[in-house]
């Protein structure tokens, strides 16, 4: 009945107070602001087809103010900007990100022009691909969780979800760039150095990821303490 669906479309506060809620009723679905990313119908899996059909009947949330239909809009970069942001200063965070990408491009183009013709094909100049690849290289595969058993707490190796892995990679990058740098270097310089190092699988962030993996390997004996 239209009357019973109408109450799902109004701004919402949950009756049971959760720790984290939003003004959207959970009935709303997430928007997809990209312009031409539609895969033709024949290549969709049955779940994706179901989701498409569900989208025609369900209300959709409003697009965020940081998302556009432009091809330069990358959700990964947006997430990274939000994580870098302090005290709501989005202007500064976005400025740092733009400067970082510019610095990366400049360095790579310089390297490209300085290198002999044979090696030029291997040099990646697109800062977006460098960022994505670098982040991939920083993502840990396995993590550690603290489990209390018999009065003692053990570090137990635990699988991580995709979101958690992405979050950890970004967090390590940001803390690394904030702490371990010379007083005079700017954030964007240090970030570009770290990203280029991570792209080549070197640098402190990748080292931190490897340390985590070694710790997990060392604590293999406690893996059965995990009950979830």
């Amino acid at each position: 009945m239209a009357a019973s669906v109408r109450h799902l479309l109004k701004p919402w506060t949950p009756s049971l107070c959760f720790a984290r809620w939003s003004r959207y009723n959970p009935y709303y679905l997430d928007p997809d602001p990209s312009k031409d990313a539609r895969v033709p119908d024949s290549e969709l899996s049955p779940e994706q087809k179901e989701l498409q059909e569900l989208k025609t009947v369900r209300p959709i949330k409003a697009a965020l103010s940081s998302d556009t239909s432009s091809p330069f809009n990358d959700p990964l970069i947006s997430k990274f900007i939000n994580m870098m942001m302090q005290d709501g200063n989005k202007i500064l965070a976005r400025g740092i990100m733009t400067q970082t990408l510019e610095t990366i491009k400049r360095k790579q183009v310089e390297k490209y022009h300085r290198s002999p013709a044979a090696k030029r094909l291997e040099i990646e100049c697109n800062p977006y691909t460098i960022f994505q690849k670098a982040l991939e290289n920083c993502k840990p595969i396995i993590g550690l969780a603290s489990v209390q058993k018999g009065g003692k707490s053990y570090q137990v190796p635990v699988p991580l979800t995709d979101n958690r892995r992405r979050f950890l990679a970004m967090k390590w990058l940001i803390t690394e760039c904030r702490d371990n740098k010379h007083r005079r270097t700017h954030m964007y310089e240090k970030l570009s150095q770290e990203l280029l190092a991570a792209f080549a699988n070197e640098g402190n962030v990748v080292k931190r990821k490897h340390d985590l993996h070694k710790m997990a390997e060392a604590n293999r004996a406690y893996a059965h303490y995990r009950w979830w």
Partner: protein
Amino acid sequence: SRRVSPELLPVRHICVSSSLWKKNLAAAGPQKFTQEFIDKQVEEFEIGKRHLANMMGEDPETFTQEDIDRSIAYLFPSGLFEKRARPVMKHPEEIFPKQTAIQWDAEGRPFHFLFYTGQQSYYSLLHDVYEKILAMERHQDKMRNKGLLTSETKQILLTGSRWLLKEEIEEYLVENISDHDYMRLIQLMEKLLSMPYCSLEEEFILKFRKQLEVQSSKHEIPALQYDPQGVTFSVADGRRKTAKASITLRDSGSGNITINGRNYLHYFPLLQDREQLMFPLHFVGMLGRFDVEGSVEGSGHSAQAGALRLAISRALLSFVSEGDVEKMRQAGLLTADPRIKERKKPGQEGARKKFTWKKR
């Protein structure tokens, strides 16, 4: 012993208090209406409708319920705040609650074998559904014996519909059911759906599903208006977090954007805000086609940009095809953002921040 005739025996009046004569209203249950009573009410309603139509000077044949409501509100104006206390004239079906007829015969024996469960229609429905499940299993076995068992059986289309709500099921069964009962019924229907040959009972299942309306039909498209010069334009409003914006989209061919009399480069020095203004136009592919003239007030720069974006998207609806309207809706351009500043709570520093926790 003396034999006395019964007429001469003294009559003793036993005094009884009047409280025993009063009817026990609570034990009687809800007021029962007979079918004749309801029929009489329906007749009176129809005659009264015709009288009302004649009174209002309208045609009695085409007098709808909305006309009745309008006439009653005109003839009996009421200042009462409670809408349910105002004078009402509706069909008796909507006023008198639906009741089941007497469930037992003259000797007091109930007709239905599940009468003593207290919810005979609900349990008989459960029995019916289970019968169908068993019948389907038998059909499946028969097909397997013949060697005709295939996994590619016709599936019922279920997207775009939902199960009937508990209130709707109660209306259908004319009985009250609990949440647990409702869940049990839905689980049984899902089990019926999970069987391979469920398309045999498609009609039965669709009786319990309600079609959801397609969302894109709900958006109001602003009317296309014409300038004295012949240029088409449309006007729309948008709001975000106390910022109110109003946009005029002119189909003139240049791509100028003017906000509050100033160029959008001056009004929004930040790239993100200008991107938000361009977002709906870029999405539809009509960036350089329109002249955007907007006025906005209230809140901060980001909220103003959001309000303008919503207004531009709404104004664009009149220039864009049906398929594009649905695409814009799925991109999140046509929803008004309901997020506002969360209120500060008493006993806390702000909306979420608490005062310093002191152990003692």
